[in-house]
């Protein structure tokens, strides 16, 4: 009954958390020559992790390999295509990174809000009043 209680938001929260680290790396290396800005392709990761798109293998023996590993919550990191790279080879474009960081922040809080709502719904159901 309590499987997949928070739906996509549980996984989304992990991804947004990971993406903050990647975007913070970009911001930190805005002045590093040769650094290539990176980001996570959300659509790709979330479409892979939709429960309907894959069937879980039954693991009845200890030697069975599970298809759902902890690593699946993490998305592949890709290099960003810059609008105009710097002469020193750095592809961090500060306004774009800052905008992505702010948007990611809002989305993280949105997912957190949905999870919190779900928890308060459950509390309401448990208390029955």
């Amino acid at each position, binding site marked *: 009954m309590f499987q997949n209680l928070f739906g996509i938001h549980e996984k989304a*929260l992990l991804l947004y*958390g*990971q*993406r*903050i*680290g*990647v*975007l*913070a*790396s970009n*911001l*930190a*290396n*805005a*002045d*590093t*020559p*040769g*650094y290539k800005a*990176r980001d996570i392709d959300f659509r790709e990761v979330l479409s892979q992790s939709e429960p309907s798109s894959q069937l879980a293998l039954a693991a009845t023996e200890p030697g069975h390999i599970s298809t759902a590993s902890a*690593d699946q919550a*993490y*998305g*592949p*990191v890709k290099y960003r295509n810059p609008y105009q790279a710097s002469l020193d080879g750095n592809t961090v474009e*500060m306004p774009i990174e*800052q905008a992505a*960081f702010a948007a990611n*922040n809002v989305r*993280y*809080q949105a997912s*957190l809000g949905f*999870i*919190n709502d779900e*928890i*308060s719904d459950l509390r309401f159901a448990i208390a029955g009043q």
Partner: protein
Amino acid sequence: MSLFSVFNVAGSALNAETIRLNTTASNLANAESESGDPATVYRAREPVFKTLMDAAGSDPNSARAVAGVRVVGIVESQAPATMRYQPDSPLANKQGYVYMSNVNPIEEMANMISANRSFATNVDAINTAKDLLLKTIAMGH
């Protein structure tokens, strides 16, 4: 949890930008330094930034690779020191010339503004990560 890595990453950037601000201050302070010998005259200094990969992500394509930044060295500008005829200076050489430091104050001011803005951005990133972590801790309350 990647949110905690923001503190390390942005913290390393704060450190690097502080070193950059320090060299800028040192350059501006010595903009008018002079010497009688071109070998000893003050030369503009500049830190060299290098990406510092997280121990967990030595592979830059790895999902958990977050990258800080560190200063790997400080280089001195090789621009020639300008000569100025100043025979009354105690530092002047036999021909009456002193060598001025090769600091370009305009370049240094631009550098300072850039370092300042990068510093502020990283402070913002730390504050954002802190807010999100505190909200995550309060989840369900």
